[in-house]
């Protein structure tokens, strides 16, 4: 089954996993959630939705980079069913 057909089967909604780390993870109190969003939603749409759901995220959204399936992407990136999205605050390793 192709991706498009798969997405249509769920009533125009897709499910993505969203992971949080460091300060935003502590702010919202969890490291991982499942979110249903309309088919065709972008990363930016998802961030808007998350900010409504979790007002504590608002402090961080300006600084957050986003990865989809473990690679950095832009806010215009269109999401697909089963994607793993990660909200990454400014890194500080080393």
């Amino acid at each position, binding site marked *: 089954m192709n991706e498009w057909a798969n997405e249509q089967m769920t009533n125009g909604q897709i499910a993505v996993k969203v992971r949080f780390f460091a*300060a935003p993870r502590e702010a919202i109190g969890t490291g991982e959630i499942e979110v249903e969003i309309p088919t065709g939603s972008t990363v930016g749409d998802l961030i808007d939705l998350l900010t409504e759901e979790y007002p504590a995220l608002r402090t961080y959204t300006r600084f957050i980079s986003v990865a989809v399936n*473990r690679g950095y992407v832009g806010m215009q990136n269109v999401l697909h069913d089963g994607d793993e999205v990660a909200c*990454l605050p400014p890194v500080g390793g*080393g």
Partner: protein
Amino acid sequence: MVERAFQITEEDVSVDEVVARLADPAIGAVITFVGVVRGVTEGREVRYLEYEAYPEMAENVLRQIGDEIRARWETIREVAIVHRVGRLQVGETAVVIALSAAHRHEVFDAVHYAIDRIKETVPIWKKEVWADGAEWRSEGG
């Protein structure tokens, strides 16, 4: 290709063990960078650091940094980078970068590049915990 060359681990990191991963009769030089937990930042005494990673992605990004280094410096033969996560005490090793080369030329530039790229781009975060508070820290401030 070196096994387990790019790794996020909760275990102690040993410089000797990381260097041993690069063993190869063709090399004539190994350069290492060892990042250690500092006990004082901006005049405040650090009790410990808490490192957190997005481990699956962090290992991929470390591998990309290794690829960038070998593309940019032909003299570099192998790259291994191991970063520890979890609670680290002052003086403990947080990261080891080891580069091998046939000759010593340019290895210093390459290791400098490696640590800069790690701090810029690898999804790892550091929380400083002091006696009277705590804060997530990044290069940006």
